[in-house]
């Protein structure tokens, strides 16, 4: 209540909740109720789990399913892979967060590299073609990258305004399931979960990649 001068609404809201909860009745629902009948028409049919048992394969499949481009790479090849992506997509400028390993982009040649020290105005960031970052961890079953403001990820605007995002994922940080997420990332950090490029399904529920965030997401999985 640091700033609100009027304490009355707070007290009223909390009091009306308290009196509402004084009614302790519990509602019962039969255990079988509300469960989809498996095998009945129109109910989800469990997909046989023959899909990649391997977590990295699953991660790659799920990323690709949401139209991210995925490249597997050995650590030593990473600079070449990044350089290849940059030249292939005619990227003329890249921004990098302050803590990014400089060897990653040592082969990109004539391309302009901007170091984000936090002072670059947003409209300038928006004029840069691409951003290269690492990531804190990733989730295989949903194809999700987890950024949390680490020095190799930068502030949130950096991964938002350029049109290309090249994200390097070390294979050992790929977890299988969403449920383990917060044992691998500190929840109070500024977190962005990214699953594929920006997309909308607002027009006839047809998924279109590329609205306001980066329209191109490249994920390099490094083992």
């Amino acid at each position, binding site marked *: 209540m640091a700033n609100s001068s009027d304490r009355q609404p707070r007290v009223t809201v909390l009091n009306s909740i308290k009196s509402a909860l004084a009614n302790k009745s519990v509602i019962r629902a039969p255990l079988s109720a509300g*469960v989809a009948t498996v095998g009945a*028409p129109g109910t989800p049919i469990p997909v046989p789990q023959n899909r990649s048992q391997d977590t990295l394969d699953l991660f790659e499949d799920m990323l690709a399913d949401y139209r991210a481009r995925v490249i597997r790479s050995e650590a030593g090849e990473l600079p070449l892979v990044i350089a290849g992506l940059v030249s292939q997509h005619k990227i003329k400028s890249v921004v990098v967060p302050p803590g990014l390993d400089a060897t990653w982009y040592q082969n990109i040649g004539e391309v302009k590299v901007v170091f984000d020290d936090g002072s670059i105005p947003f409209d300038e960031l928006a004029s840069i073609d691409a951003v290269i970052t690492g990531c804190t961890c990733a989730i295989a079953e949903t194809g999700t990258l987890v950024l949390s403001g680490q020095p190799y990820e930068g502030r949130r605007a950096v991964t938002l305004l350029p049109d290309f995002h090249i994200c390097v994922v070390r294979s050992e940080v790929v977890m299988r399931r969403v449920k383990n997420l917060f044992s691998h990332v500190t929840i109070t950090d500024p977190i962005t979960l990214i699953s594929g490029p920006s997309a909308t399904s607002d027009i006839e529920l047809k998924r279109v990649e590329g609205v306001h965030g980066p329209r191109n997401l490249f994920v390099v999985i490094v083992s």
Partner: protein
Amino acid sequence: MARTLSLFVSCFNDTLYPKTAKSAEVVLNSLGIKVEFPRKQTCCGQIHINTGFASGAIPLMRNFIDTFEASEEIVALSGSCTAMIREHYQDLAERTHDSGLIARTEELVPRVFEFSEYLTNVLGITDVGASYPHRVVYHPTCHSLRSLHIYDSAVRLLCAVKGLELVVLPYAEQCCGFGGTFSIKNSAMSAAILADKVGNIVSARAETVVALDNSCLMHISGALRRNNTGISVMHLAEVLAHGLEAIEGTDGQN
């Protein structure tokens, strides 16, 4: 001693669709089961609950308990009535604060089964020996599908009927739009949902629509007849009685 059960026919079948109850008796007798019809039965109270007059359902529930508590097994010829009994009777009883009634209800409700559920899950039977050489679609009524979870029961019973061709009903899981008094209160909406159901039935080129609830079938049949489709409707019990024996006193209707 032969197994004996009590039939809960439902007010609706009793008055409008007696053939369903007669057929159920034929099927059960053919399986060596003795069928009783406790005369005091009337209505489970579903229309009251569903329309918002729950207190009006309480005397009906009392009558149901009085009528059936002496029966070992009760078989109901309606998915929605069975669901009503399972989902609402305990709550209704608790409202009366009558501890005797609460206990009697708790004791009775687990002994109430829907007809197809009784055949497959209690008796473990799928082939009753019926024959019905026609092209049939099965419409899983909402309460049988989503409250009782007995989609399988009817399908397995139908598949075992000699000569019966069970064809896929597109969007079978979608409601027919009946909903009791919904069909009156929101009649335009009810008719719109029904029109799509009828369209799907026609597209499946079915001769007969089978379901576990004559109330939904009355609604569907009303439109099938209005549109002169020539497609008939039948409660599952009637299909299963086909080819077993002639039903005495049947007047050929419904």
